[in-house]
């Protein structure tokens, strides 16, 4: 992250990792301390490109590449004016054309291409569509408010749940302590034998546990986390049923065109292994057995013996 240094004081960024880089409308970065120093009077010129800037225009850099930050700023401003939604357009094609137009504008402004012409286009658009812009602004603010309300509700729900679990735990602790205390008291005062009292105590403790379990299970969820209430029938198109033929395993059939070869396991019993060089311990360590070589030799001897099968 500290691969970029402040272009002016260079060293300060490396030495002080908590130092932030600020970006301005021209796309060039300066660290906080340099901003303070240069713009002590409130306005000045950029160090690298000499454009007149104001101190208030500096924002903390969010992205590594200052060009991206610059584009983000420009985009915000452009979208304040070009705030139509897809519902405002009669066809998808027109909406896409509109979006492309917006992108062109952002691109031009970011890369300093035809800045004057683009700004004029923007002003013209603003004048023509003033009321639509206003309406959309209102809609946007309303949506944002709704979102915020939902977030708030969620947060409150979380808080409540946390409090409840805390309280539960407290109650459990208290109950357990009471139980222990009761046992001690009984041991002191009662006439019954100690083992009986201990057994009673254990029973009570078990009962408490089951009670707690039941209490926990009572809470049944009625609503999914996305907001859809449970048990609601969702109308979807039924999935098309695809009937396939059930797979049946057929074992592989290989024609060796020769007499049958005895199985590897049978070789010892049939006496083949007596006529093969026995495997030394070094060979067997790797998993080699004399049966393997014998089997291979016999397989090769019998394979293709009855050819041609015409």
């Amino acid at each position, binding site marked *: 992250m500290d691969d970029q240094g402040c272009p002016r004081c260079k060293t300060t960024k490396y030495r002080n990792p908590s130092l932030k880089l600020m970006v301005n409308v021209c796309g060039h970065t300066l660290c906080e301390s340099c901003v303070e120093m240069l713009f002590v009077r409130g306005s000045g010129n950029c160090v690298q490109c000499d454009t007149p800037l104001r101190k208030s225009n500096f924002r903390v850099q969010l992205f590594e590449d200052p060009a991206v930050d610059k584009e983000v700023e420009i985009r915000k401003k452009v979208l304040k004016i070009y705030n139509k939604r897809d519902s405002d357009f009669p066809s998808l094609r027109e909406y896409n054309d509109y979006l492309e137009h917006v992108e062109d504008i952002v691109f031009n402004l970011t890369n300093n291409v035809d800045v004057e012409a683009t700004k004029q286009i923007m002003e013209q658009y603003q004048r023509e569509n003033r009321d639509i812009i206003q309406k959309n602004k209102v809609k946007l603010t309303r949506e944002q408010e709704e979102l915020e309300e939902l977030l708030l509700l969620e947060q409150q729900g979380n808080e409540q749940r946390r409090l409840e679990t805390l309280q539960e735990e407290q109650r459990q602790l208290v109950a357990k302590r009471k139980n222990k205390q009761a046992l001690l008291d009984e041991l002191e005062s009662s006439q019954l034998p100690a083992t009986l009292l201990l057994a009673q105590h254990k029973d009570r403790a078990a009962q408490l546990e089951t009670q707690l379990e039941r209490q926990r299970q009572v809470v049944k969820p009625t609503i999914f986390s996305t907001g859809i209430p449970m048990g609601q029938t969702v109308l979807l198109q039924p999935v098309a049923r695809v009937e396939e033929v059930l797979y049946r395993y057929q074992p592989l059939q290989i024609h060796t065109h020769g*007499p049958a070869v005895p199985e590897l396991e049978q070789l010892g019993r049939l006496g*083949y292994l007596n006529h093969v060089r026995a495997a030394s311990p070094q060979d067997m360590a790797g998993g080699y057995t004399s049966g393997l070589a014998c089997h291979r030799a016999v*397989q*090769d001897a019998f394979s*293709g013996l*009855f*050819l041609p099968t015409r």
Partner: protein
Amino acid sequence: MYHNSSQRKYWTFENEDCLEKLRCQANQKFRDKIISSGKVGVHESLLLDPLEEDVLFKHYEKRLLDFCAVFKPAMPKSVVGTANMYFRRFYLNNSLMEYHPRTIMLTCAYLACKVDEFNVSSSQFVGNLQENPAAQEKALEQILEYELLLIQQLNFHLVVHNPYRPMEGFLIDLKTRYLALENPEMLRKTADDFLNRATMTDVGLLFSPSQIALTAVLNSASRAGLNMESYLTECMGLKDDKETLSKMIDSMRRTKNLVKKYEPPKPEEVIACKQKLERIHAEFALNTNPKRKRGYEDDDHVTKQHRVAEEVGVNSASQAQCAT
């Protein structure tokens, strides 16, 4: 295994006539190529005909076997067999006039070592050639040039099933099941000898290796005066299957005849054909080699400086990128 191998599917033919035809075709193809290339002073009689090619082929095959015999470290029999089979298959579809058999023979041996996992480094391999180091280097270069061509002409079918393991299998089986024969070990030597002679014939391209091995075993038994008919009928379960039995006996007879028919080439013929071959290669081979050399150099053996220059270029380019 042999029954589902590429050898059975693509490199086993019906009879010797098929093989003859293929070799004549390869010969004819080269002739047409030479005539159509329109070189001045080309005469039909300068080119080898199939019989002369056969003589040379046998000669170089013998040279290959001798080379493998004196190879250090000792080359296992399967590697020799594989190399021989590659040599044979290559010249089934190509003419000796187009690719010199000496290089192809070394390439076959080299490739066979690799395929059969008989680990020999390339310098060790050419160290076995009886020549000075410079000539060895040149030979190595040639081998590496022709290697890919060889693999291609083998149609990438590199696994070869030799009859040596089936023969071992038969000996084991005889010792286990065929107790009428007291000492099958005595058959080993003659059977081995039979197989060595069989590799110098076309049997590998006509019959399955197990059949060749069985022929070898039965042949050596009959030489020793033992009758092993009952082995076939009893142990192989062919008592009732007369048709398969007769077919097998027929194949074995054909194999035996082929092996018996083999004659080593006469020295004076070899010398005459060799002269012709050298002349042909000197005249016509010039157009093929340089092209291939250039193509190969583009791959690996490129001048080392180029690669270094490339790396430096790449480094500076990447540095420039980082700086922006």
